[in-house]
């Protein structure tokens, strides 16, 4: 991948993301033209340029509902796609993904326990921190269960994922069972994945997790490339393999925990996006990770746009939309891997 093409890819994704942010903020029950959205944004930062939204509720709708929702979509998409690419690197397996191996549902266990018990002593961050802790525990569990000499075979990975997912969903079911009616309703919708509850406090709670995770991913990129050579060879090139693995796992839990806490389980983003980027740009993590972050943001904005506009007056669960695309994609990848390896005995 030449430098020019790398810059081109990042540039294209950045422009696509900016355009989508404007478009997505304008679409919905109340339509606001892009020029007015840009105008409203510019006025907010003190520049008296462009038209303000013409509808009397326009500006209010933008800043109270649309912008936080789009901002959360960007953060969650970037987090999930980056987490997917990181997991694939550390598992040495392109099928590793937070929702497939059970990290998302593991994080959801912590979040749902907090929702049910109503604990809030970390304020806004309570749910995110709980999701991070159980997500971290789950990642460590999957990592130690499914690894053999530095790599994870597809079969082992998928079967471990099934086991971990079913355990996590049992705990979530229990939380749902003991919950009161309103918490139960919140839990059910949140499990399906939704950006419906996006507020500025939610955005500010996710933001530091995402930013920290993205910065860490860029720092780790070079070493993740070396990890593709296998644990021993990576070690021979000066990588402290165990420390790298542990660091990546913490970063994955950080990214997934923050996303799950405020948007529920949005599956397959971390599978589809890094895979497409690898097909375009090759496997080098220095480009893969930032490009996946941008691509993930694009995907989740589009998925959320579909979720709230496909059916009039209905807000579909976004997790349903991403799974509708992601699950067949996963199946196709699985078939292809199987053909390449000549069957799994």
């Amino acid at each position: 991948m030449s430098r020019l093409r790398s810059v081109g890819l990042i540039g294209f994704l950045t422009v696509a993301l900016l355009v989508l942010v404007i478009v997505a903020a304008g679409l919905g029950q109340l339509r606001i033209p892009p020029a007015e959205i840009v105008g409203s944004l510019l006025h907010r930062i003190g520049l008296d340029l462009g038209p303000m939204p013409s509808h009397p509720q326009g500006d209010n709708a933008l800043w109270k509902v649309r912008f936080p929702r789009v901002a959360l979509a960007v953060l969650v998409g970037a987090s999930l796609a980056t987490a997917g690419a990181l997991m694939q690197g550390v598992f040495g397996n392109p099928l590793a993904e937070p929702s497939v191996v059970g990290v998302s549902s593991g994080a959801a266990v912590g979040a749902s326990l907090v929702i049910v018990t109503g604990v809030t002593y970390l304020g806004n961050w309570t749910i995110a921190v709980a999701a991070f802790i159980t997500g971290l525990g789950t990642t460590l569990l999957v990592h130690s269960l499914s690894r053999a000499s530095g790599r994870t075979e597809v079969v082992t990975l998928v079967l471990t994922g099934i086991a971990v997912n079913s355990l996590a969903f049992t705990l979530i079911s229990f939380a749902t069972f003991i919950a009161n009616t309103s918490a139960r309703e919140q839990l059910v919708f949140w499990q399906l994945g939704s950006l419906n509850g996006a507020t500025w406090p939610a955005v500010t709670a996710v933001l530091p997790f995402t930013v920290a995770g993205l910065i860490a991913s860029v720092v780790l990129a070079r070493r993740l490339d070396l990890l593709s050579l296998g644990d021993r060879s990576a070690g021979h090139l000066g990588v402290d393999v165990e420390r790298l693995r542990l660091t990546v796992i913490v970063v994955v839990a950080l990214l997934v925990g923050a996303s799950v806490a405020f948007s529920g389980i949005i599956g397959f983003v971390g599978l589809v996006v890094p895979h497409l980027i690898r097909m375009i740009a090759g496997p080098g993590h220095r480009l893969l990770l930032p490009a996946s972050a941008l691509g993930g943001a694009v995907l989740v904005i589009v998925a959320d746009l579909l979720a709230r506009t496909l059916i009039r007056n209905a807000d579909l669960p976004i997790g349903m939309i991403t799974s509708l695309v992601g699950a067949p994609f996963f199946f196709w990848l699985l078939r292809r891997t199987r053909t390449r390896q000549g069957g799994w005995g």
Partner: protein
Amino acid sequence: MRRRLPSRLPTGRTIAEVRGVSLALGGTPILDGVSLSVRTGEVLALVGPNGAGKSTLLGVLSGDHAPDHGAVFLAGEPLNHWSPVETAMRRSVMLQQATISFPFTVADLVAMGRAPWYATTRADDDERAVQAAFETADITEFRHRVFSSLSGGERARVSLARALAQESQLLLLDEPTAALDLHHQEAVLQLARKSAAGDDAVVVVVHDLNLAAGYADRVAVLSHGKVVADGNPRKVLTAELLSEVYRHPVEVWPHPGSGAPVILPRR
């Protein structure tokens, strides 16, 4: 922490050493009181039957296996004195088989050999070192191909090129010739000789005793986890010793041209 860059040792100095090393893997003793030193300017061949402990000894030298007893030294210090990156600046390793998780190209993989020098003054050499490694390992023609599309012999040469690009003074090669054709087998050991002529130290595990006899300055014969002979190939590779170690009658003659031992099992 500041990384301590290596300084090159002059020829004939000990760059790596194991002293009284014993190691059991999974309860089975593999190495039993092995002492061996590796010197700059020298090709040292490790030979011996299957299961004698050659690769494990190489693994101890490279730091992959921590010995149960005994000590390992690199560049005059205990191995654990160096951080992983500092170790990588001083020794490179080529392993027997390589599997790569993602479809990296050959050029990417060889460039990874420069990782230890990232953000040091020697990073300026990256391009030259990679280019030289391409040429030496004879892989320039397929540098844009994806690793998984290569044959076994081609893969071995890519792994070798990566170890060469690392440009450390100690080169540890674990059966580098196993997958190679005759031409490339000879080429790899000529290369080892050339590196040693430039004051590098090369340790190579080989099965082909004639390669060891033809190219090594020193041969260490391992049997049941012990070094049973260590020295000049002409002195060490005798019919008597080899017949006993390999439990098969072996004949040795001096080559009429070079005088190097020619080794054949009796058939």
